[in-house]
């Protein structure tokens, strides 16, 4: 059946709209990426001459190196603690009935609606009282609060999708509750646990607002170090760092996809 001019026009404008939206979404990343390869010492677009020297400078810069290291320490601890705490709470919320269940659920998810600077400021005030201001513990505690809701959600969704009859079947075959947990429940939850940890890690590593309040020179994370840098200089090493951020995160997701299947890790697929 031949398509009318109107239909063809509609199809064309539809494709154009999709293209524009996608373009708009990746525009900042494209601009920054191109700026990173600029030879000149200004953040301009588009660059006239190309160079990798800002990458070299960014990697060599002491504050960035320290910030990267601090960020890794904070991220590793905070997302792991959040995973354990979040998984336990998710399990309790899914399996048990108890007093104030909905209140506890609301409190656990509340960091989603409280601004990050409020949480950062709160921790800073508390830390000032106890003299903890310069410690990792403060930054990690703050990040745990920030990423906990994401881990909780992720594990909770996996628990919901878990077929309870698999656990019952295992019990009928003679497996004790502990054995069911280790051989059936945990393996089936693994994609959810990993995706929760991954979300938490990415969020924690990128977190800036609250980190600005709770980090000190000795615990300064990479985004804070970048902020401090950009207050004084405006060369493309910032852009170079951004490109490395993007590449690093993308590599992480590709890795997760290759070994676990992205659909499973991001909980897109329904568990069978």
């Amino acid at each position, binding site marked *: 059946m031949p398509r009318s001019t109107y239909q063809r026009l509609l199809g064309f404008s539809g494709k154009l709209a999709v293209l524009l939206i996608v373009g708009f979404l990746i525009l900042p990343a494209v601009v920054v990426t191109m700026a990173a390869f600029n030879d000149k010492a200004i953040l301009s677009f588009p660059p006239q001459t190309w160079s990798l020297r800002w990458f070299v400078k960014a990697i060599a810069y002491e504050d960035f190196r320290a910030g990267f290291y601090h960020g890794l320490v904070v991220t590793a601890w905070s997302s792991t603690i959040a995973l354990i705490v979040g998984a336990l709470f998710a399990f309790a919320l899914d399996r048990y009935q108890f007093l104030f269940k909905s209140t506890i659920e609301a409190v656990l998810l509340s960091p989603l609606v409280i601004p990050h600077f409020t949480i950062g400021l709160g921790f800073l005030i508390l830390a000032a009282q106890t003299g903890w201001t310069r410690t990792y513990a403060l930054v990690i505690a703050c990040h745990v609060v920030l990423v906990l809701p994401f881990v909780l959600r992720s594990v909770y969704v996996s628990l919901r999708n878990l077929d309870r009859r698999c656990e*019952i079947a*295992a*019990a*009928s*075959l*003679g*497996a*004790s509750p502990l*054995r069911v947990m280790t051989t*059936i429940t945990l393996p089936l939850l693994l994609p959810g646990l990993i995706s929760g940890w991954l979300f938490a890690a990415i969020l924690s590593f990128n977190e800036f607002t609250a980190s600005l309040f709770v980090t000190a020179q000795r615990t300064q994370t990479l985004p804070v170090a970048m902020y401090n840098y950009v207050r004084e200089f405006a060369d493309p090493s910032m852009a170079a760092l951004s490109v490395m951020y993007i590449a690093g995160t993308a590599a992480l997701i590709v890795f997760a996809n290759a070994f676990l299947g992205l659909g499973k890790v991001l909980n897109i697929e329904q568990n069978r």
Partner: protein
Amino acid sequence: MNKIADSDALSPELSITTTDDVAVNFDAVTKKFGDSVALNAVSLSVKRGEFMTLLGPSGCGKTTLLNLAAGFFGPDGGEISIDGKRVNDVPTYQREIGMMFQNYALFPHMSVASNIAYGLKVRHISKSEQERRVNAVLALVKLTGLQDRMPRQLSGGQQQRVALARALVINPAVLLLDEPFSALDKNLRAAMQVELRDIQRKLGVTTLFVTHDQSEALSMSDRVAVMSQGRIRQLGTPADVYCRPSDRFVASFVGDANILRGRLEQIEGASAVVSLGAARVTVPSAPLVGVALSSPVDLFVRPEQLKIGDVSEPCATNGTVTAQVYQGGHVDIHVASEASSRDLLVRTGEHDALSRWCIGRKVDVLISASDGVAFATTSDVR
């Protein structure tokens, strides 16, 4: 006959000659969910090696009884024992049961072999012995060569075989089956029924099978317990419950039944005679105790026990053909008659039934069987 089977089940002290014969015993088991009573003092003994079916409509308590045997929850009253050992307080994982679930509940992260070996591994059986038994049971369920597949790579029928193998490999004291065929299409279902029964017979494993499908129950079981509203209404062989139903519920739930308004002619000892037109049918007298002679009773007749004839033969009743339903192997003829409030269902295998008994034709209906069952007209509640 059915009365004997009945009392067998309802009073365990009579049926248990030696406890060795009984694999699973329920003694006056009661289970409530909130205010509703799911099981009301149910007693049932499953003999060793027996294929026992719990048959009933949804909500009759059959699945509850199965879950109690599995130990997924405990009874509110009564005792449950497996192999002569009281298991009321024994958790599922210590009960030595094999269970097959409606959706199979295979472990999606394990291969076929690991699924089947799970129960052996839990029991700390040696690797070589595990392998030997897994291979043996795979051969039994005809899945040899598929041990390395993942469950999602299997068809529905294959998944079912894996589930069966997984339950059988541990040599359970009792095999519990919860509507295992409901997800299969009709042809596969029939084939699996035959195969399951064959395997069950070979291994001699005691089996408790739950279904709402009466033809499945009749074709597979050694004995059937027909359940309704938390009670066992009748316990007996498939032939018992089909030919000699003990009450109206069983008569209408198991198979198709015509309910004809007859007249009680005579009652003597264990049998009685009900007449309808020229037909005289011998029935058990027990359900008719207290009914006055020559008062109306409900005579239950199976569709294949009715016959259509031309007007003028001495017949049970007469009526008009209202519909013909061609079923391939047989034809169902519907006849509107004064003797029944609903259309009579007559099942015939005659080739020319469709052309002979066309719609609108006046016909005689004969009862070809000389014995059947009858119940008092109003007293019995469905």
